[in-house]
């Protein structure tokens, strides 16, 4: 039995795994709340509405005296974090949180926390994964998680929409959400009346009452009647719905219209990738530098059951997410800078896992990527090969030669110090870690796609 490190905060229970199966222990202290969740109809309602992850009770022997019961939640394909989500992923996660909170109230319960980390995506649908997040509603009591909701959702959404879409990355620094005073400073009065209320005035209130909270029992004097409590939830829902991205243009958003591929080359590339996947049985695939997921979809159509589509560009990930939502694909689009991927974060660096700690895919797809890593990021082929071999046993990679116009664009503004950037040097470096299974030239281009398999001695 391996206890999940990140679930140490909540005294209601914890996550653990046995033989790669994930379970959740419900503690005796949470018995009343858990029973009410299950017996009142709330659980069934939330599961039917696809807002909460479903689970089944499991008869598992443990000698923990705190144990009330053990449940097995539905499998999560890949744990992702808010700093890896696009704008709409975070917005949909915020709306899911508020909808659950509102629905729980009808059954005499509330959401006792509003952590963005409690939401995960299932084929484009955000669901709450923490079954122990519910508590009883006591008339008059304010929403205990209001501050957390503002830090985890409102602040990043408003900053992304009004200042810069890249500010979602502040969530990577501040693990319990963006501090309200910082959001207020960065927003500089932007964001309309909603930002004025939930960010600017909120920041002033936090600063004004920072000492008063230390007087024991003072919070008990705060009384909010049910009508106003519900009105606040409704107002938060409409606030989140009104936050939209306006006129954001990024380098990559029109990628497939701005590439140097001819129709023949693009079709040839699609055919090669399809055939490589048909010849193999890859279940979980990571598509690195996936842009809007065009090739992730081809991979999925040719046998993969799950594709994680990583890209550096927030709008490309946004586009991909909108497509996943529309077609309910088992693709998870995520924002990731491959030159600085998500590290282990939080307490002891173990609360949030680094990208390679979370999953080992059966295959990695790296199309039109190598020149960005080798030239834009100055990474030697040897280092790239070593890292990719660490991530997966199979690699489908495209080599883009220096003569290619896309590489020439990268070299236009800098000295060409990349004398080793040749096809033979690429093959030499990757041969150290991988066996070359097959390679095919893309028609009407100088590019080559390889299927490489990790050498036994590196496994």
């Amino acid at each position, binding site marked *: 039995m391996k206890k999940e490190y990140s679930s140490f*905060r*909540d*005294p209601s229970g914890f996550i653990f795994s046995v033989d790669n199966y994930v379970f959740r222990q419900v503690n005796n202290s949470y018995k009343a709340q858990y029973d009410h969740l299950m017996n009142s109809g709330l659980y069934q309602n939330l599961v039917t509405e696809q807002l909460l992850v479903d689970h089944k009770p499991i008869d598992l022997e443990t000698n923990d005296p705190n144990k009330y019961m053990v449940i097995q939640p539905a499998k999560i394909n890949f744990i992702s974090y808010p700093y890896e989500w696009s704008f709409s992923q975070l917005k949909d996660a915020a709306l899911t949180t508020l909808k659950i909170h509102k629905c729980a109230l009808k059954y005499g319960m509330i959401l*006792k*926390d509003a952590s963005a980390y409690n939401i995960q995506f299932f084929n484009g649908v955000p669901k709450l994964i923490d079954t122990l997040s519910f*508590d009883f509603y006591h008339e008059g009591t*304010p*929403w*205990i*998680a*209001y*501050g*957390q909701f*503002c830090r985890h959702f409102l602040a990043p959404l408003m900053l992304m929409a009004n200042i810069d879409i890249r500010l979602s990355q502040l969530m990577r620094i501040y693990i319990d959400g963006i501090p309200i005073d910082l959001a207020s400073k960065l927003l500089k009065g932007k964001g309309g009346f909603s930002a004025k*209320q*939930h960010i600017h*005035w*909120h920041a002033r*209130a*936090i*600063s*004004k*009452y*920072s000492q*008063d*909270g*230390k007087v024991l029992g*003072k*919070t008990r004097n*705060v*009384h*909010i*009647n049910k*009508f*106003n*409590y*519900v*009105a*606040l939830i*409704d*107002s938060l829902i409409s606030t989140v719905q009104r936050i939209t991205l306006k006129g954001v243009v990024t380098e990559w958003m029109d990628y497939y219209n701005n590439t140097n591929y001819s129709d023949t080359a693009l079709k040839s590339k699609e055919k090669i990738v399809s055939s490589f996947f048909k010849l193999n049985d890859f279940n979980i695939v990571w598509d690195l530098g996936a842009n809007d997921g065009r090739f992730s979809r081809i991979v999925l159509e040719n046998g993969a059951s799950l594709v994680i589509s990583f890209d550096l560009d927030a709008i490309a990930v946004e586009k991909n997410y909108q497509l996943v939502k529309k077609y309910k694909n088992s693709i998870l689009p995520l924002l990731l800078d491959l030159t600085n991927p998500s590290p282990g974060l939080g307490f002891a660096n173990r609360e949030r896992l680094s990208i390679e700690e979370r999953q080992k895919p059966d295959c990695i797809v790296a199309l039109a990527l190598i020149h960005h890593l080798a030239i834009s990021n100055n990474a030697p082929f040897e280092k790239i090969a070593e890292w990719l071999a660490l991530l997966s046993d199979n690699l489908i990679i495209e080599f883009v030669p220096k003569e290619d116009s896309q590489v020439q664009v990268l070299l236009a503004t800098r000295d060409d110090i990349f004398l080793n950037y040749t096809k033979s040097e690429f093959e030499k470096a990757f041969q150290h870690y991988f066996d070359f299974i097959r390679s095919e030239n893309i028609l009407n281009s100088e590019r080559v796609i390889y299927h490489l398999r990790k050498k036994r001695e590196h496994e």
Partner: protein
Amino acid sequence: MYLDPGFGSMIFQLIVALIAGLGAYFALAKKKAISLFNKKNKTNMEDSNEERI
């Protein structure tokens, strides 16, 4: 309760909940007034229809 709600956030919630509550109250009153007006109009129309018959 394992989450620190923050005293400032709790106190401040009173104000935002009050603003939201006022908004909801007026929205509700407006809705009632409109439905009352529509009902009255409908009754008037029905009356005039009856007169025609």
